[in-house]
């Protein structure tokens, strides 16, 4: 076995997946070293969420190898933080913000119990997300942006080595979005992050690597997106207005 496999946070080798007779992922190859911030962009229906779910072990690919920290993803729980795409959570669900975040610790518990250390971790995660004052409010009473921050806290509360974010800013307003990306920027370099987004401008100002996905994956070991790759995955020329103007979103809202 190669030593590099053990060093990779995520390794995909020849992953193929068909759903309902249609190829969703084809020959996906990726070896993502630890500590790298990877952005994945691509058109809707291009398989971005599916790829995230394959990496998390939620879907088994038809063919190919998936490894997280050199092991099958379902053995890596407790080491992965996950923020699903606009989760359809019931607004009336009887759960407080604190309890919702506490669920992120389930992967670490011993003998089925959560203890004082878990509660302390939750308090810290809530504080760093700026949600301490809302901790005992019902989760459903929060605004969309606050909910996303709470769900990010839930993903981070286990101290994961790998963070997978699927369209984390879909449906939240721009100031909340800027705050969210600042939170991510603070994590950059400390853990491996995979951010799925359709917002090409923001992504290229944040990430170390960028990949374009439309059934096939084109990965670059730099944050530069090649226009020909975009054209390849989107099937038409894409105007990269924001490219070369890094931190555009963050900066604009700081001035207010």
């Amino acid at each position, binding site marked *: 076995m190669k030593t590099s496999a053990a060093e990779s946070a995520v390794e995909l080798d020849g992953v193929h997946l068909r759903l309902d007779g249609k190829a969703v992922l084809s020959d996906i190859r990726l070896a993502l070293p630890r500590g790298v911030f990877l952005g994945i962009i691509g058109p809707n229906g291009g398989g971005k969420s599916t790829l995230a779910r394959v990496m998390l072990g939620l879907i088994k690919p038809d063919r190919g190898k998936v490894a997280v920290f050199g092991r099958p993803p379902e053995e890596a729980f407790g080491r992965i933080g996950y923020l*699903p795409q606009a989760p359809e959570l019931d607004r009336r669900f*009887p*759960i407080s913000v604190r309890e919702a975040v506490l*669920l992120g610790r389930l992967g670490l518990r011993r003998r089925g119990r959560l203890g004082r250390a878990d509660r302390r971790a939750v308090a810290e995660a809530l504080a760093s997300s700026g949600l301490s004052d809302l901790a005992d409010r019902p989760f459903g009473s929060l605004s969309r942006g606050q909910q996303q921050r709470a769900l990010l806290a839930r993903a981070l509360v286990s101290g994961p080595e790998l963070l997978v974010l699927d369209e984390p800013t879909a449906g939240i307003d721009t100031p909340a979005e800027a705050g969210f990306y600042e939170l991510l920027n603070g994590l950059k370099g400390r853990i491996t992050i995979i951010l799925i987004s359709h917002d090409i401008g923001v992504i290229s100002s944040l990430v170390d690597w960028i990949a374009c996905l439309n059934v096939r994956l084109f990965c670059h070991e730099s944050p530069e997106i090649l226009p020909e790759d975009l054209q390849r995955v989107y099937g038409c020329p894409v105007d990269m207005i924001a490219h070369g103007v890094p931190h555009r979103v963050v900066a604009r809202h700081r001035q207010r």
Partner: protein
Amino acid sequence: MSALFQYQFLRHALAAALLASLACGVVGSYVVVKKLVFISGGISHAVFGGLGLAYFFGLHPMIGVIPFSLLAAWGIGGISRRSRVSEDAAIGVLWAVGMALGVVLISLRPGYAPDLFGYLFGNILTVGRPDLAVMALLNGAIIVATVVFYRDFLALCFDEEFARVVGVRTGLIYNLLLALIAVTVVILIRVVGVILVIALFTIPASIARRLTSSLKLMMALAAVLAFLFTLGGLWISWTADLPAGAATVLLAGAVFGCFGLAQSFFSTFR
């Protein structure tokens, strides 16, 4: 009040009401927040097949029905999760087939089916000591499972996919939840019958959810409400000479309706 001490069957009815309320407060809350109402309806009606089976083989109806109700629950769970048949269609099929099986098995056995109506619509006044013992045992199992797996159930109900990522064995926990539903159906059979079970699953828990944002509190409130409804139904049945199960459900339904109206009134004119 004196009647309570005078008649043993009333004391038994009271004990049955208490046990049933505990179970449907806890499990009904899961049913409501995880939106398993239709599945629960399917399980409870399929259980009637189990009653027919127990009756056919001359088993005690409460005990004979337990394995069948678990089977029905996991059958519905398995079909709805794996097969190509859409979930609600699968539930509908098991719902009706279970009922039909029960009717056929009961009619196959020669002689008059003594308490058929009681199993369909409940008859809390005929609950005997063996019934109470089974109900208490099943309640114990529900409480233990809920305490041990509280977080797993919470994670499953709140966000199933996330639960899987953090290592909750969601398939197992989901089947356990279905088993709790099946067991609760068995507990409730004598109180409101297989047809009316769904009311005690949903009405107390739905009211309770509007009053609190804590799942534990919701369970406690739902249990208290269910107990009040069963007591009220018992009282109505006693004074107006009506079937207790149906009276309980009508009372619960009326309170649910009033509660909903009052809430929308206050939210409109506040």
